[in-house]
């Protein structure tokens, strides 16, 4: 056993047993962040805060929600919304956060793509981030089932049908996933379990991996500059704070981070109190009915771009392209053949690639929301083709990129 001495203070007592000072240094005061960054570097903390809001509001919803097909709808729309004091607050925080979290994830993702933060040693940051995106998508989808309204039911029907694999007709697999021929009690029960236990556990684990992946390569910076973190940290600790290219994570970086979080939270609670409607689909205020499809089924806005890639094609091709769209972002570090870790605006053709990708995904999102009629179907069709073509072109245009 290690040697313990009589503690001189509470802190010393804890230090001897838990090395709290060492932990504080490793996690906060001597975790180094580059100085040349901008507000987009705060999105990680904004996501942490949003996830915390989801967990806390979810805990309160969980106490009154009843996961049965007979009672789910009323436990949400009557018990939680009408009877529970401030039940509406938890529901609206949960709904708005579930939508806004994807907006921030997309900003976080495109920031990473723009600044090349997935390259040269940062591949695992990117991959763990994309796994988080997948886990959040599954979490959002499973949560969307729980109010057991018309959109819940029909989104559940359509998405689980994707697993039949088109012409493969894996209907047995679809029935296995549902536990029934159609979404019913077995389906609601298992998606409830996934939403409140298994997927949140997976998300927390992946967040740990995502943070861990940052430790060795460190956070990227605005110029993609390769910083010698040990040398710069020494400079900082020796007193040359102004000359050093790095700063402490806490309190230096955190203070600005939390400033952005503060602005974000004002925007967030403005939505929660005055503009929550966008996160609450009116169709889902009708109880689930297996014999009546709503006139127009569409997913939440954050899934629209990939939904639109599915829509204009025959089922097999649609499913293949849809699967392609789901996984292709994970492969970005390997499809980008250029050695340059610099912002996109200094990378020639890649700059065009980046802005076309961003604009095209916005077009796909808009077309996915519109009914499947002309001219939207045609625009969606060409946008989907551009999306796929861009990914096929990426290795070629980056291979010929000049070294900056």
């Amino acid at each position, binding site marked *: 056993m290690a040697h313990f001495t009589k503690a001189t203070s509470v802190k010393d007592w804890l230090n001897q047993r838990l090395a709290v000072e060492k932990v504080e240094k490793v996690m906060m005061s001597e975790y180094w962040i580059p100085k040349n960054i901008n507000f987009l570097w705060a999105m990680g903390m904004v996501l942490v805060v949003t996830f915390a809001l989801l967990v806390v509001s979810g805990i309160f919803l969980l106490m009154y929600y009843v996961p049965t097909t007979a009672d789910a709808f009323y436990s949400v729309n009557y018990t939680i919304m009408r009877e529970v004091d401030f039940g509406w607050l938890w529901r609206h925080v949960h709904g708005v956060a579930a939508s806004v979290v994807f907006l921030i994830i997309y900003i976080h993702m495109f920031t990473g793509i723009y600044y090349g933060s997935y390259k040269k040693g940062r591949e695992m940051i990117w991959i763990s981030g994309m796994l988080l995106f997948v886990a959040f998508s599954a979490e959002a989808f499973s949560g969307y089932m729980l109010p057991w309204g018309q959109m819940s039911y029909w989104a559940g029907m359509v998405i689980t049908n994707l697993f039949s694999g088109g012409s493969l007709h894996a209907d047995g697999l679809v029935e296995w996933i549902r536990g029934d021929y159609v979404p*019913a009690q077995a389906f609601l029960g298992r998606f409830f379990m996934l939403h409140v236990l298994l997927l949140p556990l997976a998300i927390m684990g992946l967040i740990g991996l995502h943070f861990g992946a940052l430790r060795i390569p460190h956070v990227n910076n605005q110029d993609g500059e390769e910083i010698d973190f040990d040398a710069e940290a020494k400079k900082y600790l020796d007193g040359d704070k102004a000359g050093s290219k790095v700063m402490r994570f806490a309190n230096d970086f955190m203070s600005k981070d939390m400033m952005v979080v503060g602005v974000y939270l004002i925007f967030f609670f403005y939505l929660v109190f005055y503009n929550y409607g966008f996160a609450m689909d009116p169709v889902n205020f009708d109880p689930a009915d297996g014999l009546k499809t709503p006139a127009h*089924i569409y997913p939440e806005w954050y899934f629209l771009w990939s939904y639109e890639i599915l829509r204009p094609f025959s*089922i097999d091709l649609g499913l293949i392209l849809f699967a392609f769209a789901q996984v292709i972002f994970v492969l970005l570090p390997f499809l980008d053949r250029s050695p340059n870790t610099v912002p996109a605006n200094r990378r020639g053709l890649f700059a065009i690639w980046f802005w076309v990708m961003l604009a095209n995904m916005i077009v796909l999102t808009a077309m996915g929301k519109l009914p499947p009629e002309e001219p939207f179907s045609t625009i969606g069709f060409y946008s989907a083709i551009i999306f796929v073509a861009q990914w096929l072109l990426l290795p070629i245009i980056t291979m010929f990129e000049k070294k900056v």
Partner: protein
Amino acid sequence: MKNSSRRGFMGKAFGAVAGVGAVASLYAMKKSWDPLPSVKAAGFTTLDMTIYEENVMVTEKWRGKPIFVLKKSAAVMEKEKGNAAAEARNIKIGDDNFMIAIGLCTHLGCIPAFREDEGNFLCACHGGMFDASGLVLKVPPPRGFDIPPFKIDGNKLILGEVGPEYKTMKDNGVTL
């Protein structure tokens, strides 16, 4: 050397035990997600086929799924003439002709709406269309409506039981 081989043996022995346990528990987990016997046994629906009116689409329910029943008029039958795919799907009960199908789009399972004026089905989800015989008019659906297992019993139709007419359709690839 002796020690390490002993450790190696223990490692392999544990691996074997854990492997058997892992496979067994995966099997149990898989089976726990299977549809329950009560769900599977949920039955057979019997329809009285004399109550339907021509060109009025009625939705019945079988195993939680909507079943389209459309009694075809002479005009529709005239249009179908010569179209082998449409004729093969026709279900004749007494003197009446029916289109009976699972009312789920074969694309991703939305319920297409019957448009009385056009006499066809339109799926709101992805714009797929089906004609009055249940054949695809417009993609993305990969095939016509699926036909549920049925048995004709006089003027009655039993959904869920396999009769000779259904078996012929299935064998000829008319339905899945």
